[in-house]
């Protein structure tokens, strides 16, 4: 593998890595939202008159 090939591969892998990192972070946020929605739905009947 030449130096140029290594750098080009690195650029594409960095792109993939950052996008995957975003997806992982966002998956965590979605999981938190899911918990919050479940919690909110459970609370609604209790707060009704």
């Amino acid at each position, binding site marked *: 593998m030449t*130096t*140029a090939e290594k*750098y080009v591969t690195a*650029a594409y892998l960095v792109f993939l890595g950052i996008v995957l990192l975003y997806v992982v972070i966002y998956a965590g946020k979605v999981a938190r939202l899911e918990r*919050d929605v479940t919690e*909110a739905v459970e609370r609604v009947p209790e707060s009704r008159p």
Partner: protein
Amino acid sequence: MTELVAIARPRLRVRTRWGPPAAAVLAAASSITVLAGSALAFYWVPSEADQGFSQRIFYLHVPIALTSYACFGAGAWKGFRLVQRGELRHDLESYTAVHIGVIFGVLTLVTGSIWARVSWGIWWSWGEDQLVLYLVVFLFYCTYFMLRFSIDAGVRRARVCAVYAMFGAVLVPVSFLAIRLAPRYIHPVVFTTHGAQMARSMLLVFGVMFAGLLGLGASLYRTELAGRRIDHALRTLRSEA
């Protein structure tokens, strides 16, 4: 549950106008397009005569940069709509577009630095107008978040952020045109007034990657916006409880 739906529904237009199946199709299609474009860039397109193999970063770097400009432009447009119509839903849309634009901005700077290292032997050049002006645009939109989180949520914050996003859009054409107006530069210019200065096969791969990355950007925007709307609806519910 009725209250949750009643509060959330107006903010969850994404479910009716742009439902999960459409978003999933866009995400899958754009991912496949980017993967196909990358494969073409590595194995099919000929090497450029001047830069050789390293020029293949162009097919990733330039579409990412253009997608970040599109996101910043979308953020400014949504900000303009908020100022024009006073509809607060545009605030979350503008915020999300700027956020995705900054992510693509990070990708632009990283891939650009790698390309500079292999082509010029340096990671960064402060003497290059194109690079510095892109960094200015990027930092301008990074400070958008500092501004946003320094003001209490509400109409005032939405309006201030909208105006800020609109100001940033002025920098985008300046950054884009800098390389064409600069008297001295080493940054390559591919798109000139005479058209694209590259072979058809190169233009095809560029087009595939640009379409894929624009789709990826739109997909991330839609997904993140849906999450932010649910989060916003939940916060409203809690404050009203």
